[in-house]
């Protein structure tokens, strides 16, 4: 791939995007850390009356002015709640109907802080939040931050117009990659480990134990989600780490996933060792139906999992039943359909979004030399030999398109090909994140909708879990109050009003992510096609579907920013669950209950007042990366014409800027 660049680039020109993002981040930091501090206001402190209820505050949005002294007067109108304000010393327990006065406190940095419940008050306790907006005296805070986003978009367009080569991503060449097996000292160790027949066993079995513990805890553990291993580990720790890991490790989580293990062990009749050929698999070996050769079930499955998400991730019973059902489906699929081909992961798993975004990731299993793969007729990497089972997804490393350099979507990094390749051609590579997305010249509606669903749900999750709108949480939660384990499953049944609310919620979420967002995106892509001046070059549908791959890095970065918020606020629950008390039964393993319990009791989110800044930086990188990827995709689609590509990108920039501003509106305004 050789992109014509208008002139030889200076080093500064090449690194422009990186410099731009650093500059915008610094500006954002300067503003939200209050480096331009105005004089304080004089006068009596302002008294803010606030009521706490399950699971929200009223009023849910309080606006104060920078430098103003504020006194909070809070009352719980149902159960015992807590009162915690980000970035202050305020941390109080609100016993029912006893009004507590806190403060005065001065807010001298503009921005958005959150008032949180600091006392366990029920399943939705971690998400009981009110907004506290600190208005700047000088420049309105939120418009200023949106101005920075506009600056990012315009500067990126200028960069794309003036200097951007089409073979680099944010200034770094797309072809740069690092063969991890050749890294000094560590490389041979990684290679030896991945070639070892028990490497997958060693990685997956601890997770198998944890999955058993998760199901046990879900069955009999503490009915309150965050105090139960199943919810604290899966929906706080795993949910965050998986988003972060996709960027650096691709489907590393799929590599260690315990879900398909049962089926695989039964089908292979071996759990650790390599096959003794000819291995006959214990499976009915039915052919996978042709009409299921897509990932629609997976993408809509993720949406389906997200519809009851508020309810699901706060109830151990619901989560536990979901894992048990998924594990059984995975096992059944292995035993009925072609046992050597793990169909569940590609077509059914609701976490297949990890695969969709892995095309953005920095790590992949790739051949050193694709030509060698093509010449090597026996395809042991696919069918297996005595050293390895062969690719469970039947990917062909020598092929272009579905496989080879474009296979990260389906490749779970299981390293069976590394084991079985007798030529030592397969390796683990670090590559430029996004390197694979710009090669995606295919147009697959199922993957495009994965992008739409993931992007709209990133905004939704942020809005529901960390927003202050109680009605939204309540609709998603089916208006229920109780946590439950499997032993007390009965209390989870919502009343009819709650169920109707939840149906409204389903219609809202599903129509936005399945219809409205794709329609808007289609509108913009059609406009981009017209604006490019070369509409004959590519059909509207193909342009629409292909440009949607820019949502892979974009959505991923939004999710990373959501995941970090989740973990930094709620870090104490997984720590407590892992280290001292998995069932939430008051145990004290390892003697660190004191630490974990105090963290839980005192409820100390880590640096919560800086989280909006972190999210701001992530959203700016997402915006820049989306424009860059759109530009390269448009460049390739529109007959390698820079001007046409730039015009198309400018239209799409409006879409990405607007959606970034909307996302910023959720966590900043």
């Amino acid at each position: 791939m050789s992109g014509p660049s208008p002139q030889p680039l200076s080093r500064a020109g090449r690194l422009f995007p990186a410099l731009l993002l650093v500059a915008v981040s610094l500006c954002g930091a300067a503003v939200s850390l209050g480096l331009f501090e105005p004089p304080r206001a004089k006068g009596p402190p302002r008294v803010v009356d606030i009521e706490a209820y399950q699971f929200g505050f009223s009023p849910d949005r309080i606006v104060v002015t920078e430098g103003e002294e504020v006194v909070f007067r809070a009352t719980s109108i149902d159960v015992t709640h807590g009162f915690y304000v980000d970035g202050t010393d305020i941390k109080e327990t609100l016993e029912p109907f006893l009004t507590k006065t806190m403060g005065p406190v001065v807010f001298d940095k503009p921005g958005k802080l959150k008032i949180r419940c600091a006392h366990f008050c029920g399943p939705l306790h971690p998400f009981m939040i009110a907004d506290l907006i600190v208005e700047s005296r000088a420049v309105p805070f939120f418009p200023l931050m949106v101005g920075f986003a506009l600056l990012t978009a315009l500067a990126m367009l200028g960069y794309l117009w003036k200097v951007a080569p089409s073979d680099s991503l944010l200034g770094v060449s797309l072809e740069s990659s690092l063969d991890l097996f050749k890294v000094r000292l560590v490389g041979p160790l990684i290679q030896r480990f991945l070639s070892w027949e028990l490497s997958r066993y060693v990685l997956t079995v601890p997770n198998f134990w944890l999955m058993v513990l998760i199901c046990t805890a879900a069955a009999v553990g503490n009915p309150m989600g965050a105090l139960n291993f199943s919810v604290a580990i899966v929906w706080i720790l795993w949910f965050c780490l998986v988003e972060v890991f996709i960027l650096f490790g691709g489907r590393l989580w799929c590599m260690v996933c315990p879900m398909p293990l049962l089926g695989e062990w039964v089908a292979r009749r071996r759990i650790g060792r390599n096959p003794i050929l000819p291995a006959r698999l214990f499976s009915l070996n039915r052919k996978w139906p042709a009409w299921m050769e897509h990932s629609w079930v997976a993408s809509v499955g993720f949406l389906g999992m997200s519809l009851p998400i508020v309810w699901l991730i706060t109830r151990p019973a619901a989560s536990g039943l979901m894992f048990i059902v998924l594990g059984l489906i995975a096992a059944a699929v292995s035993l009925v359909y072609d046992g050597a081909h793990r169909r569940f992961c590609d077509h059914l798993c609701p976490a297949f979004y990890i695969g969709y975004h892995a095309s953005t990731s920095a790590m992949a299993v790739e051949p050193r030399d694709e030509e060698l793969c093509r010449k090597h007729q026996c395809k042991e990497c696919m069918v297996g030999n005595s050293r390895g089972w062969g690719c469970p997804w039947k990917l062909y490393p020598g092929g272009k398109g579905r496989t080879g350099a474009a296979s990260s979507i389906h490749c779970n990094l299981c390293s069976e090909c590394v084991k079985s390749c007798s030529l030592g051609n397969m390796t683990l590579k670090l590559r430029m994140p996004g390197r694979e997305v710009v090669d995606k010249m295919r147009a697959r509606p199922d993957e495009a909708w994965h992008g739409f669903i993931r992007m709209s749900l990133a905004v939704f999750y942020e809005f529901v879990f960390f927003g202050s709108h109680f009605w939204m949480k309540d609709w998603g939660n089916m208006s229920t109050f109780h946590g439950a384990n499997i032993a007390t499953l009965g209390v989870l049944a919502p009343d009819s009003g709650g169920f109707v609310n939840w149906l409204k919620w389903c219609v809202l979420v599903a129509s936005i992510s399945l219809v409205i967002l794709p329609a808007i995106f289609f509108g913009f892509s059609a406009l981009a096609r017209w604006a490019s001046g070369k509409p004959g070059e590519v059909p509207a549908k193909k342009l629409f579907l292909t440009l949607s791959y820019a949502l892979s890095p974009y959505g991923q970065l939004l999710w990373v920013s959501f995941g970090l918020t989740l973990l930094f606020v709620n870090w104490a629950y997984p720590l407590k669950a892992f280290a001292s008390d998995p069932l939430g039964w008051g145990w004290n393993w390892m003697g660190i209950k004191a630490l974990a319990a105090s963290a839980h009791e005192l409820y100390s989110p880590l640096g919560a007042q800086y989280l909006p800044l972190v999210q701001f930086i992530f959203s700016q990188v997402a915006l820049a990366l989306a424009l860059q990827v759109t530009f390269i995709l448009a460049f390739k689609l529109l007959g390698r014409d820079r001007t046409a590509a730039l015009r198309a990108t400018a239209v799409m920039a409006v879409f990405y800027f607007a959606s970034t501003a909307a996302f910023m509106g959720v966590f900043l305004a």
Partner: protein
Amino acid sequence: MSPRRSKPESERLLIAIAVVPSLFFLLFPLLKPLPAATVSEGRNVLVLASAGELGGFKPSVLKVVAGERLNVSFWAMDVGHSFNLPQLNVDLALPPGETRDLSFETGFEEDAGEYRYLVNGRRFSFPKAPGSPSLRAPLVLEFKCNRYCSPAHWGMRGQLVIDPPAASSP
């Protein structure tokens, strides 16, 4: 060449490594919740306090024979509750996730006309039934949760039952 040889010994070991810790986790439910109780002598009872829908006080009937000392650890496993026993003038707040201890010193005395239970220094007297002077009814004290905790808060209640000592019955 035989396609199916017997499993190598190490395969059994691997299966054991995968399965044994899993069984260990599966046996967790057999263990009891163990909040750290600070009172250690006498009869010790752990009471889980959870929202009425989830069972309220478990166990909800605390039995002791007069003359013994009953140590109770209350552990609020979900939200905040309280242990309220008006007749003993007790209202103990139970913050979520924490353990609170309470003990009941009980005693029993009787004379010709009546028998008395003593609980933490308070006296509860009953006249003896004229027809059957050896009949001793147990003392039943109702307790309840006194902090609103859920829609079924009103059903979160129980009984402290103090039986007469065996020696006192003829």
